[in-house]
C-alpha cells in the first residue's frame, strides 16, 4: 500500500488541478489503487484524508452534483483559499516578528510554522527583555468571532452563556474576554482560561460593539478609583513602614509623600473613590500600613479586622 503522505499529496494535487468537481469514484480511479476497493472502506479512508487535510488548514469544497451524476457529492480545492496571499513583509519586519515570538512565546511550534509560511528564516536573535504570554485553546476562535462581529456561546462557572464579544485583553498574565452577556443582560468580563472545556460555539447572530466602548478602560487600572468622578475623590493619610515604604512610594508617586520619618517609614496621601478598594489596598500591606485619617476609614479597617480576628 502506498505511503499515506503520497496519497494525500496526490489527492491534493488532483483536487487543486481539476476543472470540475470530482466524485469519490473518479478520485479513486485517478489515484489508481491508492484507495481500498470496497465501497465502505474507500469512503472511510477518504473521510480520514479530508480530516487530515482540514487539520493542516486545507478545506475541501463540496457540492451535490446534478445531471448524469445527480445525487453524488463532487469535491475540489480552491487554490486562492488554500494559499497565503503575498503580505509584502520585508526582511526587517520578518526578523522583528521572529524576535517578538522569541520574547513572548519561546519554543512555540505554532509560531515557528507561521514564520515558515511567511518566509522567515531560522530563529537566531537573542532576547534581553521578555514577557510570558499564556495561551488558551479557545483564544483563536474567540478572536475570530470578535473580528467577524459574531456572538459566541460557552460554559463558564458551570453556566451556559451567550456573549457578544467586544474585546480581548491580556493583563497581568491572564487573557480576558470583555463583552455583553446576553444571559445576564449586562457587560461582563471572563477569564479566557476558565471558559469551559475548550468549547466555544460561534453563532450566526451579528454583534454591534458600542461606539463608545474602549477596551483600555474595560478593567480599571486602579481599583481604588472605581466609580470616581471629580466630586467623589477623597484622600486618606496612611503610614507605611520602612520595609514597604519603597514600593508604596513607587506605586503612588513621590508627590504623594507627606512626610519621611527617621525610622524609614513614610506618610502618604492616597486618593480614593471606593472605600472597599482602599481598605483592601491597605490590608494588603499587613502590619506595614496603618490608616491615620480620616476616622471613618480607620474605623472601617478596624471593623473588618475584628470580624476576621473573632
Amino acid at each position: 500500500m502506498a505511503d499515506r503522505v503520497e496519497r494525500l499529496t496526490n489527492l491534493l494535487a488532483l483536487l487543486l488541478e481539476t476543472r470540475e468537481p470530482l466524485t469519490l469514484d473518479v478520485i479513486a480511479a485517478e489515484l489508481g489503487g491508492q484507495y481500498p476497493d470496497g465501497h465502505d472502506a474507500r469512503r472511510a479512508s477518504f473521510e480520514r484524508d479530508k480530516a487530515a487535510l482540514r487539520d493542516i488548514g486545507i478545506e475541501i469544497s463540496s457540492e451535490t452534483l446534478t445531471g448524469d451524476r445527480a445525487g453524488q457529492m463532487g469535491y475540489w480545492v480552491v487554490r486562492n483559499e488554500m494559499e497565503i496571499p503575498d503580505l509584502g513583509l520585508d526582511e526587517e519586519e520578518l526578523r522583528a516578528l521572529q524576535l517578538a515570538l522569541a520574547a513572548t512565546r519561546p519554543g512555540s511550534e505554532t509560531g515557528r510554522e507561521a514564520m515558515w509560511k511567511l518566509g522567515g528564516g531560522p530563529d537566531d536573535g537573542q532576547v534581553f527583555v521578555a514577557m510570558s504570554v499564556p495561551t488558551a485553546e479557545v483564544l483563536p476562535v474567540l478572536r475570530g468571532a470578535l473580528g467577524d462581529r459574531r456572538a459566541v456561546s460557552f460554559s463558564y462557572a458551570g453556566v451556559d452563556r451567550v456573549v457578544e464579544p467586544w474585546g480581548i485583553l491580556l493583563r497581568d498574565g491572564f487573557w480576558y474576554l470583555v463583552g455583553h452577556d446576553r444571559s445576564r443582560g449586562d457587560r461582563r468580563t471572563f477569564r479566557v482560561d476558565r471558559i469551559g472545556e475548550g468549547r466555544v460555539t460561534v453563532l450566526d447572530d451579528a454583534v454591534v460593539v458600542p461606539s463608545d466602548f474602549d477596551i483600555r478602560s474595560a478593567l480599571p487600572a486602579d481599583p481604588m478609583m472605581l466609580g470616581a468622578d471629580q466630586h467623589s475623590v477623597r484622600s486618606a493619610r496612611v503610614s507605611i513602614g520602612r520595609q514597604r515604604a519603597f514600593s508604596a512610594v513607587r506605586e503612588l508617586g513621590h508627590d504623594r509623600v507627606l512626610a519621611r520619618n527617621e525610622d524609614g517609614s513614610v506618610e502618604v496621601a492616597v486618593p480614593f473613590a471606593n472605600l472597599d478598594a482602599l481598605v483592601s489596598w491597605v490590608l494588603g500591606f499587613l502590619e506595614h500600613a496603618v490608616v491615620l485619617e480620616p476616622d471613618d476609614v480607620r474605623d472601617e479597617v478596624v471593623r473588618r479586622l475584628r470580624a476576621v480576628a473573632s
Partner: protein
Amino acid sequence: MSGGRAARSAEKRLRRLLVVLPWLMERGAASVAETAQRFDISESDLVRDLELASMCGLPPYVDELIDLFIDDDGTIVVGVPRLFLRPLRLTEEEAFELLAAGRAAMQLPGADPDGALNRGLRKLAVGLGEDDTGVLVVSPNPSEVTRLAEAAREGLEVAVVYRSRTRDEATERVLSPFLTFQDHGNWYVMAHDSLSDEVRAFRVDRIESMEVGGASGHVPPEGIDVPNTWFADADIARVDLRLGPAGRWVVERYPVDEVSEPDGDGWISARLAVTGEAWLARLLLRLGDQVEVVGPESMRSVGREAARRLLAVYGET
C-alpha cells in the same frame, strides 16, 4: 537536531512538505543540509519525503508531477516549479500566535511604534483581512526594566540594593543580568548574583536602588527561558477555600487548581496555590467575611492571627 525523534505522523510530514516545497520552488536549488536545518527536520527524513514528493502529482501524466530531484552531492534541484508554489494560509491558531506575540512585544520597554514590528503587524492585519483592533495587551514598564534590559544587551554588571521579601532585609549585590521578563504582571531579572554565585531570578520591584557598572564577564547559561508555568509548580502548597459571592473575584485573579459550582447561596469552593503565608494572610484580610479556610489545618489560623497582630498596631484589641 536530528535522530532520536519519534515516528512522524502523515499530517505532520505533509504539513512540513507543504512549506518546504514552495521554498525550494522559489529558489530553484538548495542543499539538503541547509534545507534540513532551516526546517528543523533530519536529513534522512527530508530526503525520504522529497523523494516521495517527486513521484507525486497527477498520474499517469508524467509532466504533471512535482519536478525535483536530489543530485549526488546533496543538492536539491527543482525543474519546473508547479503545483505547490505558495505556502498555505495561516491557520487561526497561527494568526493569533503572531498577533498575540507581536502585541505583547510592542508593550515591552524599547518597542518603537514606528518600528519594523509594528509595520509588520499592520501588514499582517491588512493582508489577512484581520480586524485585530479589539485585542489589547497591557503591561506596566518601570524604568528599571529598561535599564536592566540595556545592561543585559551590553553585557554590563549592575550593583543593586535588593530587599528580599521572605527575610525582609536589604542586601547589596552585583547582578549580571541576562534577561528581564514579565510574568503575571510582575517583572523579574534573571541574572548571575555575586552574593550566592548563582544564576537566579530577582523581582524588579524589590530592587531599591541600582547603579550600572562595567563589563560583567559572566556569559548567559544555555537554555535561559521565559518561565511560563510559574504557578504550576507542584511543590507550592495549596489551600482549600470557601468563597462568598463578593469574594469570587479570587478565582479570576489567581491561578486555581479546582473550582466548584456555586451553591444555593452563591458560595464556591476553590483550591489555590499559596506562594507564602504572608500572601495568604493578605488575601484573607482583604476577603473578610467572604472567605472560609477549609484546610489544611495549618492554614486555618493564618487570617485570625494576622488580624490580631494588626489590631494591636492600631492600638485596639
